[in-house]
């Protein structure tokens, strides 16, 4: 399986019943047709023997993950290995990443096309053509382009905590109501800054998926949109309208609507009246940048990176500090991009080994029992681990969980290991005290 470029992932989509290829994405060099056929064949063979093949590892460190959705579509992810590479990277980590990818890709397909078209395939050629409209989102998932966006992995909404949340909350609520919607959301720098209560009742992966769609629409620089969207959990067969408005570059508001109001009317009658009074508030919000936290939260200098999850609200904030002032005597700090990577790896490491997952993995209980992400030894625990740490050649990592939160923290190697716990608890309480997150 060394046919793929190091570190790249290729995605294959076939019909589940007959193995007709529907599309392939990712990796500059496509796998030959014969390999695709074999990958499908071996899965089918398993099926014939009453075995569901879900994952395998190749000699070269590559991985293949299979999954059939709704008995109609088979997705296969093939990675060439070389991902991660940190001390905490294990084959399990890569498997979880790929499983998550397949779930998310399927959700994208439902979001754009609706479930009926995917499960009730009458005309394969037509389906192939229609599937092209999902490529924007799918490619975005494969590239994981934007640093600092972890929602695809955590299924918690990447959030930004604005300095003045009450005003924005009021505006989002009022705006959604005026647009005859209960679902409204303000996105700043690609992260949710405020949303209506009902928005948070959407399935977690829907919230994450809609955020991803908003980010891609926002990146195009367009002023407003009217997008038909199916909700993979809440409304897989009936499309809603996602109306999105770019208030300022980097700040977008959206609502999920029925047939009314029209985009034209919502834009000309509602956007200005609700949001013009808040221009300065929005600018303040944009000014906090990708730090995601208001200036009132001071971060200890020995914190390299943080991911904080509110388990009940299914939201997360995260940030990575730009590495600075490191002494020549010390080993070099990992780059910003590497910190994001390490944060993801440590998250998967902790949640597959020690921490409760039911909050962060969106599979049904039966599925979970079936596919069991936990490594066996954790199931043998009679208790629930609350903290864990890991020291690698690149950094030290500390995870801690409370009934409300999960915190994942990276520090430079220079921080003494015994100080990690205090640093983590302190960071958690600092953020919570200042923001109420």
């Amino acid at each position, binding site marked *: 399986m060394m046919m793929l470029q190091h570190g790249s992932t290729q995605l294959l989509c076939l019909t589940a019943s007959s193995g007709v290829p529907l599309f392939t994405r990712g990796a500059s060099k496509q796998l030959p047709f014969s390999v695709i056929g074999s990958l499908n064949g071996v899965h089918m063979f398993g099926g014939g023997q009453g075995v569901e093949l879900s994952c395998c590892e190749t000699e070269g460190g590559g991985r293949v993950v299979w999954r059939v959705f709704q008995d109609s579509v088979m997705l296969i992810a093939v990675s060439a290995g070389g991902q991660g590479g940190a001390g905490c990277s294990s084959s399990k980590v890569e498997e979880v990443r790929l499983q998550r990818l397949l779930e998310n890709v399927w959700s994208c397909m439902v979001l754009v096309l609706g479930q009926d078209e995917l499960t009730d395939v009458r005309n394969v050629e037509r389906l192939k053509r229609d599937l092209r409209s999902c490529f924007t989102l799918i490619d975005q998932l494969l590239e994981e382009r934007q640093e600092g966006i972890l929602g695809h992995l955590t299924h918690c909404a990447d959030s930004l905590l604005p300095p003045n949340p009450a005003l924005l909350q009021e505006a989002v609520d009022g705006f959604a109501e005026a647009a005859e919607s209960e679902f409204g959301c303000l996105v700043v720098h690609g992260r949710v800054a405020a949303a209506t209560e009902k928005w948070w009742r959407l399935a977690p992966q829907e919230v994450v998926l809609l955020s991803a769609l908003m980010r891609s629409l926002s990146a195009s*620089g367009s*002023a407003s949109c009217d997008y038909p969207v199916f909700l993979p959990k809440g409304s897989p067969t009936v499309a809603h309208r996602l109306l999105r408005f770019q208030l300022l570059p980097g700040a977008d508001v959206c609502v999920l609507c029925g047939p009314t109001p*029209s985009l034209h009317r919502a834009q000309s009658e509602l956007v200005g009246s609700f949001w013009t009074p808040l221009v300065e508030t929005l600018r303040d919000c944009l000014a906090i940048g990708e730090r995601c936290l208001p200036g009132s939260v001071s971060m200890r200098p020995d914190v390299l990176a943080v991911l904080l999850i509110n388990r009940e609200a299914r939201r997360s904030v995260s940030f990575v500090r730009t590495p600075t002032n490191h002494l020549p005597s010390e080993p070099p700090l990992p780059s910003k991009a590497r910190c994001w990577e390490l944060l993801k790896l440590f998250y998967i490491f902790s949640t597959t080994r020690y921490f409760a997952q039911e909050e962060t993995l969106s599979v049904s209980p039966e599925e979970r029992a079936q596919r069991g992400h936990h490594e066996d030894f954790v199931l043998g625990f009679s208790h629930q681990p609350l903290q864990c740490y890991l020291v690698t050649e690149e950094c030290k990592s500390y995870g801690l969980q409370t009934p409300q939160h999960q915190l994942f923290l990276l520090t430079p190697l220079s921080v003494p290991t015994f100080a990690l716990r205090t640093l983590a608890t302190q960071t958690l309480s600092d953020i919570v005290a200042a923001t109420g997150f």
Partner: protein
Amino acid sequence: MAQDAPSSGSIVVADWHQCKDSKEYFSKILHKKRRKNFGLLESPVMPPHVAVDTVHYKIFISGKSGVGKTALTARLAGLNIPNLHYETTGIETTVVYWPVKLRENGRVLFFRLQLWDCGENTLRRFDHLLPACKEQVDAVLFLFSFTDRTSFDDLSNQIAKWTGTSVKLVVGTKFDLFMHCDVPERDVRDFQETWNLRVLRVGGEVSDGLGDVAPLLNCLAENLWHQDCVTAGSANRRSQQDTGTLL
């Protein structure tokens, strides 16, 4: 069919962006030599003693999938032009501000052109999108691609569907791919005569940003303004002071 469309440059000053006196206006739509991206809550702001009216228009971009609607929209707005064809899966609107000087009295106006781009395949899958695009539309740009004969042949069908709207322009995209040109000059000329419609051409690298798009935007502005004068008998009907959205 368009009745007596204004001849080019008869209403607005052509190539005004090259004149010295346009600098202070065009500088408002630029940022670090690139076009400025305005959010819906923003607009170009002139100093208080230079009062400029802004006139608002809605323009629909029509044409089959892959013809270059999204690319043209990005080009006109000075945004990044997509290299790959990703289908647009809904309506996306883009706002273009364009200052124009009227020939008749030297008056300057900001045209706020909101371009409505809807992916053709999605348009066919969902019935509610086309009516949304048609609502209070002021002009339609009909796109065909010089590399796709069928898109050119289909123009008459497309145009016939838009009887209510009188400002119509035809834009041929991918003019830069002359090696693959499938629509000879002669056919374009015949078409212009039959339909009495202007055909504009776009394609190729984006050069200095303004000279590239000026002919099309000026032509559009001219036609829209002319149309307003005809329907209202007064040039002031559409003008509205943008007090609400000035920052």
